[in-house]
C-alpha cells in the first residue's frame, strides 16, 4: 500500500535525539524515530515516560529543547487528538465543527461534519452543548474534530481512552480505512488493539 515514490522522498516524521525539558525537569531524552509516508507508528511506554509530550512535539504544540524534529507538511495536514478534546465546552458539536472547519478551510465542512457525527454516533446529540456530553461522547467529538479536514498525518494520544466498545469499534474501522493511506502516530496502553495495523513501534522508557 505504501507509495514507493513518496516513501523515497523521506519520512513524514523524523525525530533524532529529541529532548524536551520544562525548566529543570527533563521529560524526554534522546528519542529517535522515523515514520514513512503511510506508516503507522505505535508509541508505548509507562505512565510518565513522555508519550504525551512526544506527540505534542510532533503536533507542534510544544517545541523540543534539543535534537532534530522534522514533520513534513504544515498545520493544515495534521490532525491531533490529545488528552483534552480541544473544543469549546459551551458550543454544540455542530458549532464546534463549523468553527474549526472554517479555520481549517474545509470547503464542504457541513457535509463532512454531518458524515463524521453520523459515523461516530453523535448525530442525535449534534445540537447539544459539549458540556452536557459524557466522557466517551467528548472523545468521539475530539476524533471528529481531528478527522474533519482529512489530514495526511494523524497524531493520536491514547485515542481509545473513555470510548465504550461501540466507539472503539468505530475508531478501529476508521483506523483500518486510513492505514496505508494516511500516516498515523498513535500512543496506547493496549498495543494489541492496533497490532494488525502497526508498521513501526517506539517504546519510551
Amino acid at each position, binding site marked *: 500500500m505504501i507509495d514507493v515514490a513518496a516513501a523515497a522522498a523521506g519520512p513524514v516524521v523524523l525525530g533524532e535525539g529529541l529532548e524536551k525539558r520544562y525548566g529543570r525537569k527533563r521529560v524526554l531524552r534522546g528519542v529517535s524515530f522515523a515514520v514513512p509516508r503511510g506508516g503507522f507508528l505505535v508509541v508505548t511506554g509507562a505512565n510518565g515516560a513522555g508519550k504525551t509530550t512526544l506527540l505534542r512535539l510532533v503536533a507542534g*504544540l*510544544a517545541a523540543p529543547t534539543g535534537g532534530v524534529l522534522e514533520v513534513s507538511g504544515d498545520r*493544515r495536514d495534521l490532525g*491531533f487528538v490529545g488528552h483534552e478534546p480541544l*473544543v469549546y465546552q459551551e458550543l454544540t458539536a455542530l458549532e464546534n465543527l463549523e468553527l474549526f472547519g472554517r*479555520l*481549517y478551510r474545509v470547503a464542504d465542512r457541513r457535509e463532512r461534519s454531518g458524515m463524521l457525527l453520523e459515523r461516530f454516533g453523535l448525530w442525535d446529540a449534534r445540537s447539544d452543548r459539549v458540556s452536557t456530553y459524557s466522557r466517551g461522547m467528548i472523545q468521539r467529538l475530539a476524533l471528529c474534530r481531528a478527522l474533519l479536514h482529512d489530514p495526511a498525518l494523524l497524531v493520536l494520544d491514547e485515542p481509545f481512552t473513555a470510548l465504550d466498545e461501540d466507539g472503539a469499534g468505530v475508531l478501529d474501522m476508521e483506523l483500518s480505512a486510513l492505514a496505508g493511506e494516511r500516516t498515523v502516530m498513535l500512543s496506547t496502553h493496549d498495543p494489541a488493539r492496533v497490532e494488525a495495523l502497526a508498521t513501526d513501534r517506539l517504546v519510551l522508557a
Partner: protein
Amino acid sequence: MSALTLYASDVVALARKDLRLELRARDTLPAMLLFVLSTLVVFHFALPTGTADDAAYGLLWIALIFTALLGLARAWAPEREGGALDGLVLAPCDRSAIWLGKTLAVLVFLTAAELVALPAFALFFAPVDLVAVAGVVLASIGICAVGSLLAAMAAASRGREVILPLLFLPLAIPLIVGGVGAGISPEGATYLTFLGLYDLVFAILAWATFEYVITE
C-alpha cells in the same frame, strides 16, 4: 479568496464565537454593566460636594478601566476549558487572528458597558462632549488590544486573577492620561492624537508578539 479576506473571515468567526458564548452563558457582560453603574454610584459618595467636574472625569476613567479588567479577566475562560486554545493553536489560521478576534469581542463588551456608563455619568455628574466620547472610543481600542494579550499571559500563570491588574495598570496609565485629557483639556485634539498613537504602537506590538504568548 485572497489571504486578507481569509484572515478577516477567521477573525470574524472567532469574535462571533465569543459573542455567541456570551449570549448563551451571560456571565461577563451583565457583570460589567452592573459593575460600572455601581462604581459610578459609589463615586457619588466618594466625591465631596462641590468637587469640580474635572475630578469626576478622573473617576469615570477609573470606573472604565476596572470594568474593562473585569471583562478581560474572563476573556480567555472559554479557551481554558477543554483545551480549546490548543485547538486554535493547531489550526492553520494565522495566530494573530486569535488575538484580533478576542480583542474585537472584548471591545464589543466594553463598548456596551460604555453605552451605559457615559449617559449615566452625564446624568449623575457632568456633561460629556464629543471629544470626550472620541477619547473613550480610542482608549477602549488600546485597552482591548493590550488587555487581551496580557490576559492571555495571565491565563498561563498560576495567580491569573491577581496578576492581570498588575500587568495591565502600568500600561493603562498613558490611556488614562489621554482619556482624561480629551475630556477636560481645551486642546482635546492633542490627546486624541496621543491615544491614536498609543493604539497604533501597542496594537502592532501585540499583533506581532501574540503567537509567542500562546505557544511553547
